[in-house]
């Protein structure tokens, strides 16, 4: 019996020691919530999201407003209007928002002439049973939801586009076409023979040109 009681106490002691180790870490984890984390050093986006939480907004509100602030600020030129013109000189936007409670997702891709892409993505969750809307149809949806339809071009995006044209459209993302896409602008036609080379993906992407 005594041995048994001793065993019980040993068990309790082990449990208490275990809790003693875990509690500070657990408390630290609890103190570390809420948390807002975002890619790149986009401070105003982080600050906006944090203030939304502080003012009682939801996590989805914080994501929408935080990313939306980056769209307004044109963060690094890689977010929002007036950046990353495509081959025809147009800026198009992609955005997505996800609710980790319901697993609902709202997203827009290749969105044209609407600045607040993450806002439209949120409306996809709120007003449709779909997940992803693309292209001009996504823009029409945005207009129906009350978003302004406006030009996303800026002097900067026009300048980027002009420079690219003046550099024989280099770099670009074509392969296996004629004329040779590494030297010339299009229009391109497909080459009869397709060659398979290992992709060299690091050459064109950098801190100012990324998803």
């Amino acid at each position, binding site marked *: 019996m005594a041995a048994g009681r001793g065993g019980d106490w040993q068990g309790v002691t082990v449990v208490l020691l275990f809790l003693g180790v875990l509690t500070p870490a*657990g408390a630290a*984890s609890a*103190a*570390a*919530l*809420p*948390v*807002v*984390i*975002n*890619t*790149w*050093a*986009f401070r105003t986006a*982080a*600050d906006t*999201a944090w203030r939304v*939480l502080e003012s009682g907004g*939801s*996590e989805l509100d*914080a*994501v929408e407003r*935080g*990313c*939306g602030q*980056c769209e307004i600020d044109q963060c690094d030129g*890689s*977010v*929002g209007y007036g950046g*990353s*013109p*495509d*081959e*025809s000189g*147009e*800026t*198009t*936007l*992609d*955005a*997505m*928002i*996800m*609710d*980790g409670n319901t*697993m609902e997702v709202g*997203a*827009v*891709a*290749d969105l044209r002439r609407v600045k607040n892409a993450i806002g439209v993505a949120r409306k996809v969750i709120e007003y449709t049973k779909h997940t992803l809307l693309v292209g001009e149809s996504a823009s029409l949806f945005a207009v129906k939801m009350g978003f302004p339809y406006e030009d996303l071009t800026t002097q900067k995006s026009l300048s*980027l586009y002009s420079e*690219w044209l003046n550099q024989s*459209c280099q*770099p670009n993302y074509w392969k296996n076409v004629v004329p040779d896409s590494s030297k010339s602008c299009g229009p391109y036609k497909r080459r009869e023979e397709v060659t398979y080379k290992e992709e060299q*993906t*690091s050459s064109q*992407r*950098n801190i100012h*040109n*990324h998803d």
Partner: protein
Amino acid sequence: TIGMVVIGASGTVASGTSTNGAIHKLPGRVGDSPIAGAGSYADSTAGGAAATGDGDIMMRFLPSYQAVEYMRMGTDPTLACQKVISRIQKYAPKFFGAIICANTTGSYGAACNKIPGFTQFHFMVSNPLLSRPTEQVVDCI
């Protein structure tokens, strides 16, 4: 691109992305940002993640989904991010990319692929332990 993960006081997770994509892309091209599991992923039973970089490569590996699944299995967020980057490295050693991860207890981390010109990744964190949104840096692997 911006990718963001927000975890509320009760552990509720939300995530999102916004981007104008790759410069001089073909019209119609879409990257990883609007694809759930690629650009970002959120699950209030595990955590959230968001990726950034070369979407044409990264979207093939669903890195955000993979990171959240690692965290669901109990992997520390930093290690979860690193494992995702390592997995892509095996197929595309020169890819440009990074990922941020956070779990439902508020732990967080990030990782990136080291290539010439990209050896560190900067990201922002706000939580009650930091007096203001704070820039953090990780060395790429």
